[in-house]
């Protein structure tokens, strides 16, 4: 067992505090003067005006991906709610008749109040249907129910775009608003 190191014996000038206090004050004043003359030394980001660029692997709000034909990639295999440690994903599966996939999620809700942003759902997904690469980190709402992200909401989350902007972008590109190309191909019972 290692013995604790003996405490350092303070010299007279150290134990009288005065010299050490003055040294500390010189240090802080140095910072102040340097900062006044060179504002590049500030470490703060003026957050709402300026945003920190997020790295590619940053885990933000979830989004649901689409197939090239516009349908949801998700086949409601229930891998993500199974692996989710926070039990925040709620999927109700339905059978698709006119869709290439035989199964689809009627509802796909993520309770963002419970989500711990671990990213297991992304790893578990066999269809690459869910990703957390939106880089959106301001996830907030006025009510608890608004904190549950629905399928329609997550489909419209683009890279860094909130749903409204995402929906506008989709309309501009001729994409369906909720992941289905038109009303005919949308399976029975799927919410619009």
């Amino acid at each position, binding site marked *: 067992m290692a013995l604790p190191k003996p405490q350092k014996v303070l010299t007279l000038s150290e134990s009288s505090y005065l010299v050490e206090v003055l040294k500390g*004050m010189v240090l802080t004043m140095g910072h*102040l003067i340097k900062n006044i003359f060179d504002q590049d030394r500030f470490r703060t980001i003026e957050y709402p005006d*300026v945003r920190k660029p997020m790295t590619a692997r940053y885990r933000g709000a979830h989004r649901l991906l689409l197939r090239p034909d516009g349908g949801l990639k998700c086949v409601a295999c229930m891998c993500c709610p199974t692996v989710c440690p926070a039990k925040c994903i709620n999927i109700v599966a339905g059978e698709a008749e006119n869709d290439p996939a035989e199964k689809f999620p009627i509802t796909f809700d993520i309770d963002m109040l419970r989500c711990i942003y671990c990213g297991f759902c992304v790893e578990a997904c066999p269809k690459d249907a869910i990703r957390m690469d939106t880089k959106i980190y301001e996830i907030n709402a006025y009510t608890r129910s608004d904190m549950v992200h629905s399928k329609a909401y997550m489909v419209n989350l683009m890279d860094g775009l909130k749903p409204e902007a995402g929906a506008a972008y989709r309309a501009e590109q001729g994409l369906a608003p909720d992941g289905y190309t038109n009303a005919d191909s949308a399976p029975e019972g799927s919410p619009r």
Partner: protein
Amino acid sequence: MSEFWLDMLVVVLRCVFSVAFVMNIVPLMIWGERKGAAYIQDRPGPNRAPIDLPNPADLPRLLSAALRGEPLDYKPVVSLRAAGLIHTLTDVVKLAFKEDITPDHVEKFYWFIAPVIAMSIALCTFAVVPFGDSFLGYNLQVSSLDGGLLFVLAMTSLGVYGIMLAGWASNNKFSLLGGLRASAQMVSYELAMGLSAVVVFLSAGSVSLAEITRQQGEALSIFGLVEIPALNWNVFSPFGLLAFILFWVAVFAETNRTPFDLPEGEAELVGGYHTEYSSFRFALFFMAEYANMIVAAAVTATMFFGGYNVPLFSGAFLRENADMVLAVLGLGAIPAFLGLAVVAWKRRGRPFYAAIPSDDPRRNEPAFFTAVWLGAAAAHGGLGVAGLMGGLTGLSALVGVEGLGADLLVFVLHVSSLGVKVLIGGWIFIWVRWTLPRMRYDQLMNLGWRYMLPIALVNVFCAAGWIILRHELFA
């Protein structure tokens, strides 16, 4: 009868002036604390709260919207942030309009008067601090008590009652512990504080602050060899310097500032004695802390740094050469403004804080911060007032009051001089707060009883011996 009313007017004016002097520096200190802390910690500090001035053309539309109770949306022409000074204003507005919660478990009467005591005691102490030598024969001091310094000591010990009552009446263990710590701290440091003040009594031969200040306006003689005019400050005597250091450390403990801010140690006591207070009652405690700092700095300046005296220029000298002084001040302003213009020109297009957009006026904040702290005394005494002085000299000739202009000039210079000293003291309070960690309670007690008290005692005897020796040798 008119004599009586004139005297009453003078009394009221003195009171208003001394309260205004303290309360005007309070927001400046709060702002300096926030901004200074930020610059010490490599941050830009508060820079958001604006006063958005609308385009005058929008005013009719906005007025009708306001009358209809609709939200006002407009694009501001000027967004006045004043480098974060507006934050202090918004704080006051916020605290004034917040819900004032009185918990059920408090002792109502004592709980209500505690913040009032804290604030009023802080302001009362300033009553004996002289802020000028005389103005048309009137003393520039709210109360020319003969026992001025004793009054200061008495008042600072009363000041702890606000904190103690708040802590006890809150009926809450954290507040009570905060109050207990405050009182214990007060008792331990008051002795060292009083003993270091004794050194000043001894050298002045009086406890009246007016007399102490007047003597410090005399010439400083170094062993009878050299004489420096108006610099006979107590801090320039060997034992006075030690007394000043002890006094200043004790003042930190008395005003509950870091490193001795144990009464509100938020890490272990939630908020300390003001845990249960909200709204304007909390604001009173908050302002009392800063008012205490300002008054403590003013008392220290008066005791050790010549008070209102302008270094190297005695009041009599300034009065005799009022015209000359005015001319020098006026001419001195020109190079000062030219210098500012040169600095502004040289700084144009300089790279600035990268995270603030290039056209954002917030990039000028550090310059503003420096300019305000260095120029605050000028603003306080009023460089503009100094400009008016020439006119007033003429006015005094017209009104026929002898020496009004010269007295006014000396008054402004003396108030500015005291203001500079107070602001330097205030800045040291802030500077130390953002440098030193809080002391542990046993360290605090050790420092007070085992080091400062014996040193202060020895210092009193040595100072007494020195005064006798100096009297024998050089007088």
